[in-house]
C-alpha cells in the first residue's frame, strides 16, 4: 500500500510525519510528531471534502474521555485540509475480535460495552448519532475505550430524523431502517447489538457473500442467536428489533439490561460452543477491497423483476467470455461490419427496426398508458428515492429524501431509480461508477484532463494506423491524416466536456443535447477540413445510397443527390452520434473498465445506423464512431475500482444541494496501530 507522504515529510508546519498508519474511508492517516515531540494522528482529507470538513468542525470541541479527541483542523500550503487528532496506539476492538475468533471473554466484553456506551450516550445527548459504529471504529488507549470516526455522524434532532442525505455504516452493523433513510439513535443501538453478538460469539449475526445479501438479512431475517448464551438472547433480540420503535431506545438501557443479565450469570454460562463458521468468511481486515462488493439496496427486491431476460442472458454470456476472446470477437465484428458491406444492411435493418419501435411506442402511448399509471403510483418514486447508492465497500448511502419532515411509515416497495449502480457486471457488482456524484478538485480535474488529452494524441495515431493498415477505407496517407484529425477533434471535444462534468449529476437529456451541439461543431470542422485538404469529391465520402436522392429539411440540404455528404450531413451525423451515446460512461474515471469492447462495438453500430439514416457514408461514419469511442476510452483517465475512494462521493443528485443539506458532525479516524 503506497501513501502520499513519505516519512519526514512536513506538509503541515510544526508536524513531521513519521509513518503512514492506514488509508481510511475518508483519507490517509499518518502518525506524526509535533516539533516538541507530541504524538498526533494526521488525517488528510481527500479532495477537500467540504462536507466532512464541516462535520469535523462541528465535533471539534466535543470532549469526552470515550471519544477520540480532535485537536485541530489545518490547511497546508497546497490547500489540502488535515485533521490533527489524538493518536491511539493500543489495540482496537477489531484486532481483539481477530485475536478471539470464538468471542471475547465476558469481563472484557463488559469493559468494551461500558466505554462504547459512555461515548455514544455523550453523542446522543448532544443530538448526534454516530451511524458508523463498528469494531474498526472502537479503540482502547491504556484502559480507556474510545470511539472514533464520529465524522459520519449526523445531527438527529427530531425534525431531522429522516432528512439526512447519506446513509453510512458497514453493512454488518447497519440497521434495517437505514435503507429507508431513517437515522435515529436506534441505529447505534442496533449496531451495538450486533457488536455484542460478535463479542460474545466471534461472529456477526448477519453474514453473506454480498452486501445485498447482508442487507436483505438485516431487513428480513431473524438473527441467529443460537451461539449467544440463552439468558442474553432476550436483550440482544430487543436490541436487534427490525422496527426501530420496538427496539431498545437508547444505548444506556441496552448496557444496563445486558450487564444485569451478565452479572447474574455464572462463568459456566459463557462457555459458548464454537459455532460452525458459515461458508462465507468475514474478511480478515477491514480494507474496502476485501469487503463484500456493495450493491444497491433496491436490488434486493428487484433482482428478477425488471429487464428483458434475453438481454440479461446475452450480457451474462458476454461477461463470461475471456478477455482475449472478447477482443477477437470484437475485431471480427468490426471487420465484418466495415469490410463486407454489412453496413448497408445494418442501416436498412436498423432504420426499419427504429420505425417499428417508434410505432410501438406511439401505440403504447395512446393505448397502454393507463396500465402504467396504475401499476406505479407517481408519488412513491418522488417522495422517497429508496435506492442506496453504494458509497463505500461495505457502506451504503441513500440519496436525499425530498420531504425532509416526513416520517417513514415503514418499508415501502422500492422502485430502482439508479439500478445501474448495482447491476451485476461480469459477476461482480459495480460499486462506484460514472453516475456516482463526487467532488473533484479543480487541480485534479485539470491534471486528469490534460493527461487524457495528451494520451489521446498517441491513441488517435494508433487507432488511425490500425484503421489504415487493416481496412481499405483509407487508401492514402492524406485520408488517414484527415480521418485521424477529425477523430482527435471529436475525442477532445467529448473528453473536455465529459471531464468538466465528471462527478456532477444532471439531466441526461441536457448532457446529450450539449454533446449534440459539440457534434455539430465537429461536423462543421470535419466538412471544412475536407475542403482544406482538397478531399471533397473523394471516393472516401461517396455514399451510393444517396445518389439521386435529395433530402431537404426546411432550407437545409441533408442530401443533395450528388452522392456526397453535404455540410449539413456532416454536422447532423456528428451531432446525432454525439447525442445518441452516453459518452461520459466511456470517459469517466469511474467507468466499469478502462476499455470496454462491447461499448466500442455498440458505438460502431450506432455510427452505422446514424450514417445510414442521414445519407452519410456508412463505412466512414461507422469507423469514425468506432475510432472516437476507442480513442476516448484509451485516453481518458481511469481509476481502478479498488482505488475508487468512496469519500469522493456525495450522494445527492446535486452536489451543492447535498453540501447545503448535510448537517454533519466530524469524523475522526483515530490512529490505531495495526
Amino acid at each position: 500500500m503506497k501513501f502520499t507522504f513519505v516519512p519526514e515529510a512536513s506538509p503541515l508546519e510544526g508536524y513531521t510525519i513519521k509513518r503512514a498508519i492506514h488509508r481510511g474511508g475518508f483519507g490517509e492517516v499518518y502518525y506524526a510528531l509535533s516539533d516538541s515531540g507530541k504524538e498526533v494522528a494526521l488525517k488528510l482529507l481527500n479532495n477537500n471534502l467540504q462536507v466532512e470538513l464541516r462535520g469535523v468542525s462541528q465535533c471539534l470541541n466535543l470532549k469526552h474521555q470515550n471519544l477520540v479527541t480532535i485537536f485541530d483542523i489545518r490547511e497546508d500550503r497546497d490547500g489540502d485540509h488535515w485533521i490533527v487528532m489524538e493518536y491511539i496506539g493500543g489495540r482496537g476492538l477489531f484486532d481483539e475480535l481477530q485475536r478471539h475468533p470464538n468471542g471475547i471473554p465476558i469481563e472484557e466484553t463488559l469493559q468494551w460495552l461500558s466505554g462504547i456506551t459512555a461515548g455514544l450516550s455523550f453523542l446522543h445527548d448532544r443530538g448526534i448519532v454516530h451511524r458508523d459504529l463498528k469494531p474498526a471504529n472502537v479503540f482502547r488507549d491504556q484502559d480507556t475505550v474510545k470511539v472514533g470516526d464520529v465524522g459520519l455522524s449526523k445531527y438527529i434532532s427530531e425534525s431531522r430524523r429522516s432528512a439526512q442525505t447519506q446513509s453510512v455504516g458497514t453493512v454488518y452493523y447497519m440497521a434495517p431502517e437505514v435503507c429507508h433513510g431513517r437515522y435515529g439513535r436506534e441505529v447505534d443501538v442496533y449496531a451495538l447489538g450486533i457488536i455484542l453478538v460478535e463479542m460474545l460469539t466471534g461472529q456477526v449475526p448477519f453474514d453473506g457473500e454480498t452486501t445485498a445479501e447482508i442487507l436483505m438479512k438485516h431487513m428480513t431475517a431473524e438473527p441467529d442467536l443460537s451461539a449467544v448464551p440463552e439468558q442474553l438472547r432476550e436483550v440482544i433480540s430487543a436490541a436487534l428489533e427490525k422496527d426501530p420503535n420496538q427496539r431498545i431506545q437508547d444505548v444506556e438501557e441496552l448496557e444496563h439490561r445486558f450487564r444485569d443479565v451478565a452479572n447474574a450469570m455464572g462463568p459456566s454460562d459463557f462457555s459458548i460452543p464454537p459455532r460452525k463458521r458459515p461458508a462465507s468468511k468475514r474478511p480478515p481486515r477491514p480494507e474496502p477491497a476485501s469487503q463484500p462488493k456493495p450493491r444497491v439496496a433496491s436490488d434486493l427486491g428487484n433482482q428478477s423483476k425488471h429487464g428483458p431476460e434475453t438481454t440479461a442472458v446475452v450480457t451474462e454470456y458476454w461477461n463470461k467470455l475471456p478477455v482475449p476472446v472478447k477482443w477477437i470477437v470484437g475485431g471480427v465484428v468490426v471487420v465484418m461490419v466495415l469490410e463486407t458491406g454489412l453496413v448497408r444492411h445494418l442501416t436498412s435493418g436498423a432504420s426499419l427496426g427504429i420505425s417499428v419501435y417508434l410505432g410501438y411506442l406511439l401505440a403504447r402511448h395512446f393505448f397502454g398508458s393507463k396500465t402504467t399509471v396504475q401499476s406505479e403510483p407517481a408519488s412513491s418514486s418522488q417522495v422517497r428515492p429508496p435506492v442506496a447508492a453504494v458509497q463505500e465497500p461495505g457502506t451504503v448511502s441513500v440519496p436525499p429524501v425530498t420531504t425532509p419532515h416526513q416520517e417513514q411509515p415503514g418499508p415501502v416497495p422500492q422502485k430502482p431509480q439508479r439500478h445501474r449502480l448495482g447491476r451485476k457486471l461480469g459477476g461482480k457488482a459495480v460499486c462506484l461508477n460514472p453516475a456516482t456524484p463526487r467532488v473533484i478538485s479543480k487541480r485534479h480535474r485539470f491534471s486528469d484532463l490534460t493527461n487524457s488529452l495528451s494520451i489521446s494524441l498517441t491513441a488517435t495515431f494508433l487507432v488511425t494506423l490500425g484503421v489504415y493498415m487493416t481496412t481499405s477505407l483509407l487508401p492514402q496517407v492524406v485520408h488517414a491524416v484527415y480521418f485521424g484529425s477529425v477523430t482527435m477533434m471529436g475525442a477532445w471535444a467529448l473528453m473536455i466536456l465529459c471531464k468538466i462534468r465528471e462527478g456532477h449529476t444532471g439531466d441526461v437529456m441536457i448532457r446529450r443535447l450539449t454533446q449534440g451541439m459539440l457534434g455539430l461543431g465537429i461536423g462543421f470542422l470535419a466538412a471544412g477540413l475536407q475542403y482544406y485538404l482538397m478531399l471533397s469529391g473523394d471516393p472516401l465520402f461517396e455514399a451510393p445510397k444517396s445518389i439521386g436522392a435529395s433530402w431537404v429539411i426546411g432550407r437545409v440540404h441533408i442530401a443533395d443527390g450528388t452522392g456526397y455528404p453535404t455540410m449539413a450531413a456532416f454536422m447532423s451525423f456528428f451531432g446525432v452520434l454525439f447525442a445518441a451515446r452516453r459518452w461520459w460512461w466511456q470517459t469517466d474515471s469511474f467507468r466499469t473498465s478502462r476499455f470496454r469492447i462491447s461499448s466500442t462495438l455498440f458505438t460502431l453500430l450506432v455510427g452505422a445506423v446514424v450514417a445510414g439514416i442521414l445519407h452519410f457514408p456508412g463505412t466512414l461514419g461507422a469507423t469514425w464512431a468506432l475510432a472516437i469511442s476507442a480513442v476516448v476510452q484509451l485516453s481518458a483517465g481511469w481509476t481502478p475500482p479498488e482505488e475508487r475512494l468512496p469519500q469522493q462521493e456525495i450522494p445527492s443528485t446535486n452536489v451543492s444541494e447535498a453540501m447545503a443539506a448535510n448537517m454533519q458532525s466530524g469524523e475522526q479516524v483515530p490512529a490505531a496501530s495495526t
Partner: protein
Amino acid sequence: MPQFIKHSNLRTRSRVGVPSAWAPGRILPAAVATLRDLVVSNSPVKSYIMWIDGVGAWQLYAGSSFSIGAPTFESSSADVTLLANISRRHATLHYESDHWRVTADHLTTVSGRTVDSAVGLRSGDQLCLADRVKLGFRVPSKLSSSAVIDFESNHRPAHTVDGIILMVDHCLLGPRCDQHICCPDWPDIVVLYVQHGSLYCRSSLPLNVDGKLVSASFPLKHGAVVDGEGLRFRIEEIR
C-alpha cells in the same frame, strides 16, 4: 538478486527457545546464513527506531546484552528505557552461548518465578518488573535468535512503539507471523542485520533507498527510507 544458499550447508546450533530443527532444503537469504556465524561484539548497544508504513513503529536494539530501566537524564541510562516506576537499571537480558537469560538488579519475575541472580528465558515467558511492568518475551523465528519484547501492561518507551526487537543476529520483517515484525501486506521478507558496526538490509525484492535502486545487500544510514513494491519504512539511529 540476493545470493541464496541451501540451509543444509549451515552449521546448526541448539539454542534455548529456538528449536534447532531446521527444515531441510529450506532456502535462506545468504544474510541469514552468514549472520548466524556473526560474532556479536560486546560494544555498546546500538539503538534504532523503525517507522513502517501501514504496520507500526518498532524499536530495534542491536547487541548481545540489553539493560532495562527507567529513563534518566544521564548518559548512563539503560539501553531499553520504559516510562515506568522501576529502577534506572532494573534488569538485564543477555544472549550468550545460544541462550537467553535475565539478570535482575531489582524485583523481577519470569513467568511467576522470582529472579535471584540469573534465570534462563524461553520464548513465551512473561517478564514482570517491580510487580507492575509486564513484558512478553518471544523468539518468533526459528531462523534467528533475536527476541521480541511485547508490552503487556501499559508501560512503554517515551514514544509509542508497537514492540522492541532485541537483535542478536538479524531481524526479519515479512508477511508471516513467525517473523519478528509481521507486515501482512508485504510481498516478501526483508532482513536487517549488523555488520562491522553498521546496520544492513537485504532482500530478494527490488528495493530503493532514498529513491535509489540498490543491490541485494546495502547499508542503512540514519534516516534512510527504504521502499519497494507495497512497502516503505524508515530507519533512525537513536544514538
